[in-house]
């Protein structure tokens, strides 16, 4: 073969390699572009700002401002009042709304709003019969209109929203009553039912994920470090320790869903722990993350040069002292890196949590006391799975938003691990 042919072959080969990497990176870019474009709108929400003058005769019939008695008025009562107030506000702004039916008018505002107003009033009964401003969520479809999900054309076919409502919304926007802006509530409100995607938030999921990651941190890391130390430094070389080693590397490659099945039968059916609770999820994820952290910890313990240990032994330190005083501190950055990667893995894992009932619809925050880990909660990845499988496209948008939150956590953790590794990379 001529040299020229060989050289062009060389070029082609190199190009193929570059192309492969480019495809890999392109996929990453596509993934991020798709997630960002679908998810960024979730951080924005359309709000309606109303000036309220709530009539006390409707909401506090006995007139003594006693919250216990005012509780008798249900959200339905508030819905009527709010609709009246909306009309007053529209009239004041000089907007026409006669062409809208009563129901259409009512549905301009989220179904979450009555509960929100009721809660505010019960907290502070003095709000009745005086003017105050309150910002309410707009209906999810109207919100979708400003994010391009809903158009006037699609609204004609939609039973949930009509073009007339959208027209009014446009007028309200011009009048400054309605605006689309950043929605902090997305981070701390709980999930909401199928009919009010605009009110759904990540509060319960974030808290649940936090609890689970905490459990993994508290359980998996000490166990993994102890195991790694034992296997690297103290274990006698025999068939049983060989078995443990093979077992750990296999366990690291067992599909995550199998840990879900284990959690279901061990923790829920056998040990009677509550379903949907962070403790069960945390335990499952602990067992799942354990091999990852063990392998990382072993690698970094192994990387500590034996001369350090020899120096300590030569001074009359016992083996346990040499390991705990010198080997472990030197291995700590590597262990930390492995831990962060393990925690990131646990934070993003979904499949096992589906099996132990964390897909349940949970609106109540688990308590902040230690008992909270036994109370129902969801987790970030499960919450977004849950939203994905609901019909309304507004929930898909929220799921994508949740992915952005998840990815921010993951990337921060992974970057932290990479930086730590670079920072503490020790040349012996």
């Amino acid at each position, binding site marked *: 073969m001529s040299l020229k042919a060989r050289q062009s072959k060389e070029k082609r080969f190199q190009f193929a390699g570059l192309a492969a990497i480019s495809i890999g990176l392109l996929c990453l870019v596509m993934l991020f572009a798709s997630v960002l474009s679908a998810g960024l709108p979730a951080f924005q929400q359309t709000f309606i700002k109303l000036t309220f003058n709530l009539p006390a005769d409707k909401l506090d019939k006995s007139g003594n401002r006693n919250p216990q008695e005012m509780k008798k008025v249900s959200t339905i009562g508030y819905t009527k009042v709010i609709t009246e107030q909306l009309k007053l506000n529209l009239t004041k702004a000089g907007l026409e709304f006669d062409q809208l039916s009563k129901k259409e008018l009512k549905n301009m505002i989220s179904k979450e709003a009555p509960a929100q107003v009721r809660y505010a009033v019960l907290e502070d009964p003095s709000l009745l019969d005086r003017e105050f401003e309150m910002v309410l969520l707009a209906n999810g479809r109207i919100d979708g209109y400003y994010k391009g999900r809903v158009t006037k054309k699609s609204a004609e076919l939609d039973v949930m929203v009509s073009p007339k409502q959208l027209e009014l919304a446009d007028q309200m926007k011009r009048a400054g009553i309605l605006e689309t802006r950043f929605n902090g509530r997305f981070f701390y409100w709980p999930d909401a039912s199928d009919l009010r995607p605009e009110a759904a938030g990540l509060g319960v999921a974030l808290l649940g994920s936090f609890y689970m990651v905490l459990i993994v941190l508290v359980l998996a890391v000490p166990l993994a470090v102890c195991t790694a130390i034992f296997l690297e430094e103290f274990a006698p*070389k025999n068939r049983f320790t060989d078995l443990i080693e093979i077992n750990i590397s296999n366990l690291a490659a067992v599909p995550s869903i199998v840990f879900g099945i284990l959690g279901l039968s061990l923790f829920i059916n056998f040990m009677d722990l509550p379903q949907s609770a962070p403790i069960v999820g945390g335990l499952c994820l602990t067992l799942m993350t354990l091999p990852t952290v063990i392998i990382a910890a072993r690698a970094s313990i192994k990387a500590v*040069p034996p*001369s*350090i*240990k*020899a*120096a*300590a*032994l*030569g*001074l*009359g*330190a*016992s*083996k346990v*002292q040499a390991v705990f*005083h*010198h080997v472990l*501190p*030197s291995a700590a950055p590597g262990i930390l890196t492995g831990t962060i990667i393990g925690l990131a893995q646990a934070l993003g894992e979904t499949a096992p949590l589906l099996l132990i009932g964390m897909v349940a619809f949970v609106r109540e925050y688990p308590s902040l006391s230690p008992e909270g880990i036994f109370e129902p909660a969801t987790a970030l990845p499960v919450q977004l799975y849950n939203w994905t499988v609901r019909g309304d496209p507004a929930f898909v948008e929220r799921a994508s938003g949740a992915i952005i939150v998840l990815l921010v956590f993951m990337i921060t953790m992974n970057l932290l691990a990479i930086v730590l590794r670079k920072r503490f990379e*020790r040349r012996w």
Partner: protein
Amino acid sequence: MLDTTVDNMIEEKPKIIARDVKVVYGDKEALRDVSLDVMDKTVTAFIGPSGCGKSTFLRCFNRMNDTIANCRVSGSLIYDGQEISAHDPVTLRARIGMVFQKPNPFPKSIYDNVAYGPRIHGLSKNKADLDGIVEKALRRGALWDEVKDRLHETGTGLSGGQQQRLCIARAIATEPEVLLMDEPCSALDPIATAQIEELINELKQSYSVVIVTHSMQQAARVSQKTAFFHLGNLVEYNDTGDIFTKPSDPRTESYITGRIG
């Protein structure tokens, strides 16, 4: 002839008595039937070509061979009137200090490096006491003047020769009686080597020093006694002067004249 008898009478009894020491790695024999006495306040040098078993023998003294799996030591090694195998390895190593081939300071401050031994053995009552021990050890390690202003900087930041002197100071800090040195200068430049040799010469006043070296010149410069090892055998053990001027074994002579090794 008369001189040697007088010498023997003046010398104290040996620090370590080795009789028929044999070391086996797996099924490989590394050392065969070695017998010699290590004297107090003397520098003893072990010389010989690589793989002759000199380091292996040295590591028997403080039971560092224990840390190697499938290494078996047999024969008799008596230290302080007791078999070395009967000593607790931890206390033994505190009394028989060791300096390794490559300087191996802990990745901690200079102070913590020296203070580590005294700390784990509880040699100090309080901080001032410990400060004193550290200063004394560093002074005897001929390092004090160079590091006294940066005791809390990391020990790995020192130069190679300084690191090795730090390791010597660290070994001295536990007040050992015997100091084992396994080719302590092999990783150092000539100037640092000269400093270490000078230090060894001073250490002789208070300790029994055993040094493994592959450099005959070094053995001739620092030691009073020299043992020549070859292929796992102790070929000859005598006063350093005698070994280099009138070796009794032909193998020693070939090594010294550069024909083997």
